């Protein structure tokens, strides 16, 4: 079961023949992902590393029956690639690209509405269902199949959380990096809803950041709808005001979206808080024992 991706996922990579696209597609295939094709305009009809290449996503989907895409296209063209995937009616689009202009993503967001597609990212590490399917740039070997769902806005901080779980032999059902950009395709609540419905998921780790209201909106949703326990950490308690800390999303401008304010709301909504990022594994172990 798990969520979003599993053994039946058939993946195409948009921007397959580039350096990053090639490297991470092969890494995903080595992990066990069923890679059925790739898209690079102008290279249709060729075979790259044993993978058939198509000129358009539409053609790739028709020929291979793909049901998921991973995007490795440079920022100026990435939004167009997402729109191409929406047009091809791909159910799942995972965009790894970092640095897409916000206005491009606003248009993408509008195009997603009412479409048949779900977008994960952009600016994200991807999605992994341990032992079954990996779509993204995360190191596969730190994961372990199991029952904890992981959702995060960050890349390496997600690996940190996963690593702490695996060290304690707590496996993961699916790990989703929703991305650090201000406008993204899938938010915390979307993932929480899927984890709540997934019989294999017993508990969830949610890793947030300063800036915006995504975490507090999620906390209120959890309080109202979620029966499974949630453990959470918010990065950026030590960040100075008015500074952008790498992620465009992580800009702290007012009191309301500080780490302190978010921790407070999370706690009020019955979520188990890890004040230190080193405590995520331990807190989850405690929650699972209850």
């Amino acid at each position, binding site marked *: 079961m798990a969520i979003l991706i599993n053994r039946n996922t058939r993946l195409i990579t948009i921007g397959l023949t580039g350096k990053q696209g090639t490297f991470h597609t092969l890494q995903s295939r080595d992990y066990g992902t069923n890679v059925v094709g790739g898209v690079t305009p102008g290279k249709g009809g060729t075979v790259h590393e044993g993978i058939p290449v198509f000129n358009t996503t539409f053609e790739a989907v028709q020929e291979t029956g793909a049901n998921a895409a991973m995007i490795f296209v440079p920022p100026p063209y990435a939004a167009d690639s997402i729109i191409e995937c929406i047009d091809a009616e791909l159910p799942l689009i995972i965009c790894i690209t970092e640095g897409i202009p*916000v*206005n*491009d993503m606003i248009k993408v967001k509008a195009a997603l509405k009412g479409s048949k597609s779900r977008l994960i990212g952009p600016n994200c590490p991807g999605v992994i269902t341990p032992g079954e399917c990996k779509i993204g740039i995360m190191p596969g070997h730190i994961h372990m199949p199991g029952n904890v769902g992981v959702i995060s806005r960050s890349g390496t901080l997600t690996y940190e959380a996963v690593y702490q779980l695996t060290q304690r032999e707590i496996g993961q059902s699916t790990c989703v990096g929703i991305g650090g950009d201000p*406008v993204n395709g899938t938010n915390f609540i979307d993932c929480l809803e899927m984890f709540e419905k997934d019989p294999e998921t017993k508990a969830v780790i949610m890793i947030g950041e300063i800036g915006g209201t*995504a975490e507090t909106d999620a906390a209120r949703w959890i309080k109202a709808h979620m029966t499974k326990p949630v453990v959470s950490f918010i990065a*950026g308690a030590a*960040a100075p005001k008015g500074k952008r*800390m790498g992620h465009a999303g992580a800009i702290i401008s007012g009191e309301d979206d500080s780490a302190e304010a978010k921790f407070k709301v999370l706690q009020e909504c019955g979520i188990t808080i890890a004040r230190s990022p*080193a405590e995520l594994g331990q807190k989850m172990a405690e929650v699972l024992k209850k």
Partner: protein
Amino acid sequence: MNVHEYQAKDLMRQFNIAVLKGGVANTPAEAVEVAKKLDTKVWVVKAQIHAGGRGKGGGVKLARSLEEVEKLAKEILGMQLVTHQTGPEGKKVLKVLIEQGCDIDHEYYCGIVLDRSVGKPAFMVSTEGGMDIETVAHNTPEKIIKAYIDPATGFTAAHGRKLGYALGLKGEPLKKAISFFENLYKMYIEKDCSIAEINPLVTTKQGEVLALDGKLNFDDNALFRHPEIEAMRDITEESEQELEAGKFGLSYISLDGNIGCLVNGAGLAMATLDILKLQGGTPANFLDVGGGATKETVQKAFTIILQDKNVKAILVNIFGGIMKCDIIANGVVDAAKELDLKVPLVVRLEGTNVALGKKILAESGLKITPANDLADAAKKAVDAAKGAK
């Protein structure tokens, strides 16, 4: 990316957004020349720095004669202007904007910014102009009227009516305000702004609708398609180290503590600062080496961290995903040797090729304190910084 008020107003003029006549000056003599060309009896001399609250800090003054323009320009140019956004050290004023005065009838607020929760630009107006808008939003949220602009429709006449009537305008000023809003939105989209804020927006006794101030911020990710905006960058407003770091794909922010940090990934880098504080330490910087770091960028990162004389210890925290631990380890060893590193160095490596990375560090002959996990790394770095005092 930020620009100065005078640059923002030049851009606004290109979009037919009404602003007062004025010009920028680098010297008191230039200020007088600019002032002479303006058909007015009252001038406003405004310090040009990238920070709000300039008026309260004494950076905006009214002049009633050309002599006074010169005197005020002399005072303001070169002053260390302190506002609530500059920090206690303030910012040196290198340019002033000389503008004609006007007869203000009423002050309003208008601004466009992305609302992340809906993924659309929010156009906000308020009758409470000239005040700190965050205070207004906090105390009287009902006094801020919002219109969300869908990318498919763009700014429509309906948006204009909603916002204009919300300010209580009628007749000519209403028409002028609606056209002002429409043009402001056009500029916001065409130039990939991340903030376009006019505070105050004023109506004058003569029925004009004008931007008295203008704050524009641009989406860094969109600068590749706006060389004309990139050309407005004022590097004297940016930290030298942050600029230098940016050239190498590093994201660096200077902080006031004594533990230098080198981390991969923005989230993990923020979390590393958090855990250092929890352990009783103080980070000297935020530094994300990014996903594609090489030996050279790691070396550059060390150079930048060590330029900060407060650094008493360095913590390297790498969770290799795209990045391989052996590459980082080689970079760390080379940098430590070449820079003749004197401060204690704590290194925590995890992820891709971790065994190889740890081996490289252990066999380097350098005094590197290895750490087993995040908590261990933070504790060792805090202890090292304390011991070094």
